[in-house]
């Protein structure tokens, strides 16, 4: 699930995040479009795939953003690990789990990003960012995660059936 197609999907997601999403910014927050498929992959495919998507996706996003290269990757890796630890993929899933994972992932991603920025001297007043940016983003991500998780599930199942047929 991390072939060329995955990189293309991540690149598209990053470009959409950089161009479309700022247009729908409300109350300082906006959906983290890269975080959601990374978490969905983690919930569907496990930790390994989630980590690879997190690192590649984070690097792609950092290439066109102002944060140091690796910052988003580190935040996504932490979010993936946390989600994996909290919501193990075994057993029947509740419809709310992806949304709750999105809320937790948002908090971790933003927290790590603000921490790195504060440590490298590129941001001040992280507390205000958490209140005015992270909280609205958590709500956005909880809502947007539902269709993203559903699409990722369709993509995951078709990819798996294609591989089974290939065998």
């Amino acid at each position, binding site marked *: 699930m991390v072939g060329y197609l995955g990189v293309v999907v991540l690149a598209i997601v990053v470009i959409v995040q950089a161009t479309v999403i700022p247009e729908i910014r409300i109350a300082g927050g906006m959906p983290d479009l890269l975080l959601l498929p990374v978490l969905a992959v983690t919930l569907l495919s496990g*930790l390994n795939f989630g980590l690879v998507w*997190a*690192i590649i996706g984070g690097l792609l996003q950092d290439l066109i953003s102002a944060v*140091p290269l690796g*910052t988003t*990757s580190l935040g996504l890796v932490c979010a993936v690990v946390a989600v994996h630890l909290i919501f193990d993929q075994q057993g029947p899933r509740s419809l709310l789990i992806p949304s709750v994972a999105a809320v937790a992932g948002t908090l971790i991603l933003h927290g790590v990003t603000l921490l790195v920025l504060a440590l490298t001297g590129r941001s001040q007043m992280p507390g205000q960012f958490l209140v005015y940016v992270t909280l609205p983003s958590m709500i956005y991500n909880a809502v947007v995660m539902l269709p993203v998780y559903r699409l990722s599930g369709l993509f995951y199942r078709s990819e798996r059936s294609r591989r089974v047929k290939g065998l």
Partner: protein
Amino acid sequence: MRRSSRLLLVVISVFLCVALIMLSVSGVLSPVQGILATPLQFLQGLANSFVTRVSNFAEGIVELQSLQQRNRELEAALAAYQSEIVELREIRSDYDRIAAFLKYTRSRENEEFLVADVIGRDISAFNRVIQINRGTRDGLREGMPVVTEDGLVGRISRVSANASQVTLITDTVSSVNARLLSSRAEGAVQGQVGGLRMTFIDLGTRVQEGDTVITSGLGGNFPEGIIIGQVTSVRQAESELFREAEVRSLNNFDRLENVMVITNFQPVDLSVFE
């Protein structure tokens, strides 16, 4: 995958990210970042251009209603301003005319004037007359001269209580005893279909284009010294005993709005000597 391998993978991932951050902050990765970012930035530029157009279009749709409302308000305001401008131009035009009249009347202190509005024009193509909104109640009588600041207009030919008819000097029945201002030569300015013509100018008189023609006062129909117009051309037929000159009035008789009646001039009736 075993738990220890997963932990190792996580540690490697975190270490990799931290290392990248440190290298990036130190600036070592800047050239590589620049190269890798180029295709993404290119695609970002294309996407951004598209999104901007779509966004502008969407904003246009959203704002359409408010713009229509705003447009109606502006159109209403524009109509009000245009109406006001027309009104102000009328006032200015009236002011200009009145100021010109005042200047004219001050130049002729011996005469008394009554300003009148033109309320009608000749509906027949054969008569050159106008109607004014002053009549016998205002003290007007037949024969009174009518002028503007640009010169002689005509004289009152018919009077009612509230209005009068003025026969213009361009009417074909009109004849005004006139004088060339420069040479003092006399003649008569007669109305023509196309304008005015001064006739009966003595052959020995030198007449030039641009000469000013004024009333001579002879005959007692008009006061002396009122400007009639300017000579535009001179001609003399070999068989004729007098010169003739085409005269152009400074008045535009088709656009007269206000005129002045000289009320203290008494036309002299010379028919008793005939």
